[in-house]
């Protein structure tokens, strides 16, 4: 036989249980729009009627009411994992798309300002020069077009270099290594790894004390979602609700320890200015170059765009193409230029430069042999897209363009056959450019860049759709549905009222007995 007041205890327990249920509804409704919040549920079960303070004989008769088992989160680990995998891929393609589109904008050959257009203008003005070798205005327009062409090469190259420096830095300027996008993202990532380790610690503590730290778990899930944006990370659930994070076989977080973090080392060459290592606080290096581990995520895309992988769309690849073009073009033009005769404007009437027979320069300071048309402004010794420039001797005196052929007579200043040869370089296939003409090569580079960029953008679109679906699926599990909460609210409110009624009835019953006694 239970005690007299037993029913009142039961009713009181029911009241507080319903109160707790309403509190949870309160929290759910309040966090209806909070990102990362998982809907919480009160797990209620029938109270066991076997209690230590009761004799087993009495325990079979009536129920003992309800008790709270736990407050759980609506969560589906499978969905979480697939969402994180998709997040990693999506952010890889998102970052790559941004970079690819930026590269397409820099190497823009569809409008009227690209290399193609300036090359065209240069060749055309040479062709005009071939018909009018004496005409200073035509000579000057060749020089102006050559300068525009060289500047276009230089500007495109510089923009590409700046883009690369912004992504992964430049070893010649160590400050840029710490200010690069890669470096900022790596710092973020390291901080987030530390935060996960801290949360692991707190969660472990609460869980071992028998509590369910739902808010902390939500917080950590949100962090894990964020970390998945950066790198492809494996997440393993361990005991006491802690998680272990690893990339490849290298552990990043275990329990409360951040067992591995990322650090940038300056590369040996500017082809790969930033090398990402994985080490721990004690200084042990687990991976000297994590490039092959970070195959995806935002950081993966940055590493690939800024790296030198020939199979990928890289800034270096495009810069190399431009360098080959600039150097081949300059070599071809210079070869024709130095094999001709320019007009010596210091002689009156003008004569061709006497580079055949006359050992004395025609006038002080001028060399009888034609000077190179294009030179390297950096003194590097090799012409590339960054340093190609018009020889100052030619830009100061356009008559120095060797428009005439070597075999012309001194007075034959009307010979433009060498200029014609120079303009015909546009139709020549150049060996280093894979047999393509200069402009054909630009078409190839544009086409390759376009195809690679299109491919990345297509993948981005596909991944966006997939991620949207998975996100919605997860939202439908962890999110709050207002109708549901309101229904529950009504349910628990009624239950609360009923429990109160029970208590009132019990109280009246007792009153009846007490009054009878009195």
């Amino acid at each position, binding site marked *: 036989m239970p005690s007299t007041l037993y029913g009142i205890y039961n009713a009181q327990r029911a009241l507080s249980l319903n109160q707790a249920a309403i509190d949870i509804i309160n929290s759910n409704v309040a966090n209806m729009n909070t990102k990362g919040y998982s809907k919480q549920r009160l797990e209620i079960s029938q109270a066991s009627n076997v209690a230590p303070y009761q004799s087993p004989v009495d325990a079979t008769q009536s129920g003992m009411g309800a008790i709270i088992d736990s407050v759980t989160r609506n969560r589906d680990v499978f969905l979480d994992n697939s969402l994180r995998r998709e997040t990693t891929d999506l952010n890889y393609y998102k970052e790559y798309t941004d970079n690819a589109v930026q590269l397409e904008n820099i190497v823009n050959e569809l409008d009227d300002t690209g290399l193609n257009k300036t090359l065209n203008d240069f060749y055309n003005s040479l062709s005009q020069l071939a018909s009018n070798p004496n005409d200073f205005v035509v000579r000057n327009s060749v020089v102006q077009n050559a300068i525009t062409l060289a500047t276009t090469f230089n500007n495109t190259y510089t923009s590409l270099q700046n883009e690369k420096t912004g992504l992964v830095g430049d070893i010649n300027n160590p400050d840029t290594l710490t200010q690069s996008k890669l470096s900022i993202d790596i710092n973020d990532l390291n901080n987030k790894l530390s935060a996960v380790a801290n949360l692991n610690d707190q969660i472990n503590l609460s869980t071992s004390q028998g509590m369910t730290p739902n808010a902390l778990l939500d917080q950590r899930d949100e962090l894990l979602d964020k970390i998945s944006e950066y790198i492809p990370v494996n997440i393993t659930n361990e005991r006491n609700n802690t998680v272990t994070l690893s990339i490849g076989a290298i552990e990043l977080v275990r329990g409360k320890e951040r067992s591995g973090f990322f650090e940038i080392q300056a590369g040996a060459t500017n082809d790969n200015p930033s090398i990402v290592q994985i080490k721990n606080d004690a200084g042990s290096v687990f991976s000297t170059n994590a490039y092959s581990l970070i195959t995806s995520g935002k950081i993966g895309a940055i590493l690939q765009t800024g790296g030198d992988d020939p199979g990928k769309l890289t800034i270096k690849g495009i810069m190399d193409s431009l360098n080959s073009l600039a150097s081949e073009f300059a070599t071809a033009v210079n070869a024709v230029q130095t094999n001709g005769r320019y007009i010596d404007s210091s002689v009156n*009437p003008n004569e061709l430069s006497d580079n055949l027979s006359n050992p004395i320069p025609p006038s002080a300071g001028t060399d009888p042999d034609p000077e190179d048309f294009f030179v390297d402004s950096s003194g590097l010794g090799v012409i590339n897209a960054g340093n190609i420039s018009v020889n100052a001797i030619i830009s100061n005196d356009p008559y120095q363009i060797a428009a005439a052929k070597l075999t012309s007579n001194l007075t034959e200043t009307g010979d433009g056959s060498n200029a014609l040869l120079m303009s015909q370089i546009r139709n020549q296939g150049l060996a280093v450019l894979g047999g393509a003409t200069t402009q054909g090569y630009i078409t190839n580079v544009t086409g390759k860049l376009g195809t690679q960029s299109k491919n990345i953008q297509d993948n981005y679109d596909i991944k966006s759709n997939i991620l949207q679906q998975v996100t919605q699926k997860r939202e439908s599990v962890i999110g709050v549905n207002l109708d549901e909460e309101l*229904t529950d609210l009504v349910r628990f409110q009624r239950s609360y009222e009923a429990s109160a009624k029970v208590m009132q009835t019990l109280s009246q019953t007792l009153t009846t007995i007490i009054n009878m006694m009195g």
Partner: protein
Amino acid sequence: MQFTRITNRYTSENIVNNLLINRSKLVNLQEQISSGKRITKPSDDVLAGISVVSTNNSLGKIENYLKNIDNAQSELETAETALLTTIDSVHTTKELTLQALNASSGPEEMTIINAQIKQIIEQVKDLGNTKYGSKFIFGGLQTEPTPFTAPVAGEIQYNGSPDGSHERRVEISDGVTIPVNLSGEAVFGEYYTADWDSDVMTPDTLDGQGLLKTLISLSNELAMPAPDKDFIRQQLDSLDTDMQTVLNAQSELGSLSSRLEMTKSNLQDDQLNLTKIKSGAEDIDMAKTISELQFQQTALQASLQVSSQVIQPSLLDYM
């Protein structure tokens, strides 16, 4: 029946996503319409992008070739006019020569005829020095110093590039060049006292060939107190040969002109075709794009309307 648990975040995220997609499609179409271009970067349509770049190359070249052809045509026309006048001069000379051979012509007539022939010599020299722009067109590669000069009165020397290495060529299509000038030496000839100053053993002698040699020889003969009529008659034959040379030169010019004309019309056809290809690759179909824009606007409005209705109701409205 299966159903998805629709949560509030689910609904709002879905709505926002759909609205974003609709809006970005709309903006994309608006950009296309305002720029008139279907592609702004190669990845928008790789094949079209490549075709735009390569047609730009070809169009740039064609533009240049057409400019070269126009220039060459004007230059050839100038040469043609000069040759026509030369032919007239030769005709006149022949008439004058026949007059000189006339039995009734005395020394006085000879002097008058000679004066006229001297005029013609001067005229032929000036024709040899015809300019196109600032270029002497009959000087070969030597377009600047005057090609025909008179070192001594009564003699005319050609200073330009020698016949055979006189051609100035322009490019009129890929890899095809065409000469735009004739050898002044071949057409007009020369006649002057060669100055063998390097070889004292050889006496300085009058030397030359072609029309100018004939004219000057004729003039010199007429200036003699008793001109040799046989010699003058011989010059008449030479004049016929010289005339033939000029006529040949004229027909050469004619064939060059017609070659230029033909190439020009081919290039213009190419230009038209390439412009069409380029336009097809990069320009939008206005009617199609505008109707797509209208369709997209309707879609956006519909999704806005539906969204506002979906967000509103909840159980709260009925409690």
